[in-house]
């Protein structure tokens, strides 16, 4: 019997993902509460939500990261469940604990699992224990330079010194030889202390030209676990993803099924709840686990396009105690999907370019999806990240998707602010990209950073 899904969900986020969550809720007959800062009073999802509560001034620390304000807003609106989106407090174990203590449902995994995967060493150790392949490296924390040098010399350079409290590309220093390991080690420690409040570091072999391939999982509270295939997110600039595609052009069906099965079994043993993504570096046919994100990802739409599954809907259903709507044998991958992250930034210097949107005309047609909260006259605020839209293309084949992407990018009009649309237009004309022939270093070379 289907348990009652929630009456009301509070969306503890902003921008395009808040709109995404609102949409999933409305399609399930769930009322929405949009909490917002003073700078976001005119945001699209705030306008559309059933209720809105202004929770503080523009800076995230005073609004979107303001736990007291969020919980109070949930209390006064009689919210049932809180969806944390991505970024902000979505992977903050203390926040999820407080949500639970106040009697709300947190749409996500348990605080323990958030904490487990938030600590990169514990995450790696857990995956090792569950027989998921990991990047070779130190066995836990490295306490001193001596030990670091010994290990690094043994592993072979280049070697990365990584902060245990880091993640998402932050808190890493590279050592290319035994001469560099000392400096890399001490710099990594002091930076880690400054950024994350803890100087614990570990070592990992640096892979030369890997691809970034991640696997989407969903797990319910009835023992149901499935994977929704892979996404290739190798096109990154300074560890920020710029364009993603599914499935990865680098994998064949056997490889996909094998890693999918391995991951599903591991997540099943953990008793994990909700949506999650395991990120891997993939090189020479080998997968190496780097981290797990215990939340919805920005690029989730490309998985939705090839599977036909609404991931946010499944998150909400799972949180309400329902069984997964699908078993693994129900999942099939149809066609190819590509997502372009469109930021309000210079396409050349990547300097943020907030401001008022003039004319706005998104592309349309078969297989074209735009996830965005912007509109003509909207003011892109300077206080938050610069992502303003995601253009998601689906085609029957990768070639069809590429042609469609090219066409859609040339229709897209966003006036008034600089955007990275010109960069995406260049990318989809580029031979390497068209051939699927790229790795995690490729984009930085392309934009001239190397």
């Amino acid at each position, binding site marked *: 019997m289907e348990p009652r899904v929630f009456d009301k969900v509070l969306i503890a986020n902003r921008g395009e993902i808040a709109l995404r969550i609102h949409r999933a809720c409305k399609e399930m007959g769930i009322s929405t509460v*949009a909490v917002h800062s*003073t700078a976001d009073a005119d945001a*699209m999802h*705030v*306008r*559309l*939500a*059933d*209720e*809105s*509560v*202004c*929770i*503080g*001034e523009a800076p995230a620390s005073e*609004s979107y990261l303001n736990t*007291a*304000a969020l*919980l*109070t*807003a949930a209390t*006064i*609106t009689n919210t049932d469940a809180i969806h944390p989106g991505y970024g902000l407090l979505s992977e903050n174990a203390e926040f999820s604990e407080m949500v639970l203590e106040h009697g709300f449902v947190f749409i996500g995994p348990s605080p323990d699992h958030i904490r487990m995967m938030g600590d990169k060493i514990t995450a790696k150790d857990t995956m090792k224990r569950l027989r998921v392949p990991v990047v070779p490296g130190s066995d836990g924390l490295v306490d001193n330079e001596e030990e670091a040098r010994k290990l690094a010399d043994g592993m072979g350079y280049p070697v990365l010194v990584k902060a245990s409290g880091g993640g998402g590309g932050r808190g890493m220093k590279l050592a290319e030889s035994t001469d560099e390991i000392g400096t890399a080690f001490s710099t990594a420690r002091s930076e880690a202390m400054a950024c994350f409040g803890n100087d614990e570091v570990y070592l990992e072999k640096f892979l030369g030209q890997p691809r970034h391939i991640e696997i989407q999982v969903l797990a319910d509270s009835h023992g149901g676990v499935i994977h929704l295939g892979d996404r290739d997110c190798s096109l990154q600039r300074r560890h920020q993803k710029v364009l993603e595609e599914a499935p990865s052009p680098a994998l064949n069906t056997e490889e996909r099924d094998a890693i999918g099965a391995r991951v599903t079994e591991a997540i099943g043993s953990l008793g994990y709840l909700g949506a999650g993504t395991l990120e891997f570096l993939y090189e020479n046919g080998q997968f190496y686990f780097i981290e797990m994100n215990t939340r919805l990802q920005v690029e989730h739409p490309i998985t939705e396009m090839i599977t036909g599954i609404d991931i946010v809907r499944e998150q909400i259903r799972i949180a309400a105690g329902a069984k997964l709507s699908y078993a693994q044998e129900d999942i099939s991958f149809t066609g190819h999907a590509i997502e372009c992250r469109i930021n309000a930034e210079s396409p050349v210097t990547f300097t943020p370019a907030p401001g008022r949107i003039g004319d706005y005309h998104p592309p349309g047609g078969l297989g074209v999806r735009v996830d965005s909260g912007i*509109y003509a*006259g909207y003011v892109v605020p300077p206080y938050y990240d610069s992502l303003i839209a995601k253009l998601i293309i689906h085609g029957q084949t990768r070639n069809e998707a590429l042609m469609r992407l090219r066409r859609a990018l040339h229709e897209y009009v966003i006036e008034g602010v600089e955007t990275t649309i010109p960069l995406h237009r260049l990318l989809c004309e580029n031979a390497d990209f068209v051939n699927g022939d790229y790795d995690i270093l490729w984009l930085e070379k392309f934009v001239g950073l190397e």
Partner: protein
Amino acid sequence: MAKHSIDEGVIEQLVKLLDEHGLTELEYGEGRWHVRVSRAAAGLPAAPPTPGSESGEPDVPQNRESAAAHPGAVTSPMVGTVYVAPEPGADPFIKVGDTVGEGQTLLLIEAMKTMNTICAHRPGRVSKILAQNASPVEFGEVLIIID
């Protein structure tokens, strides 16, 4: 549709009324002829109700914008629930017409089980009390106007 020469006087009057009363939109008609004067861009979805206005009380929404701009406006520094008296059953801290001194307690806002005192930011006369007892308020919401 019959041609109708534009009576600028009517338009001017409507704009004046719009401004005076802090309205967003005003429509006037005579027979089959109507004119609408509007402040906001058309076609955008309307702003949803905020928690405070759900009670159905005539909150005079069109006065909100002008209220927030008033120099004597006391706005909420947090999300929470308003209480107008120190305890249930006690007299309210203030009523309309009272003279208050700077720093005088006007009301309480409860958030996360703690009571926070909201004080007058300047001396003057309480001209409007917009907050209702036991009602939720959001950040920046106008609670009281001190003239």
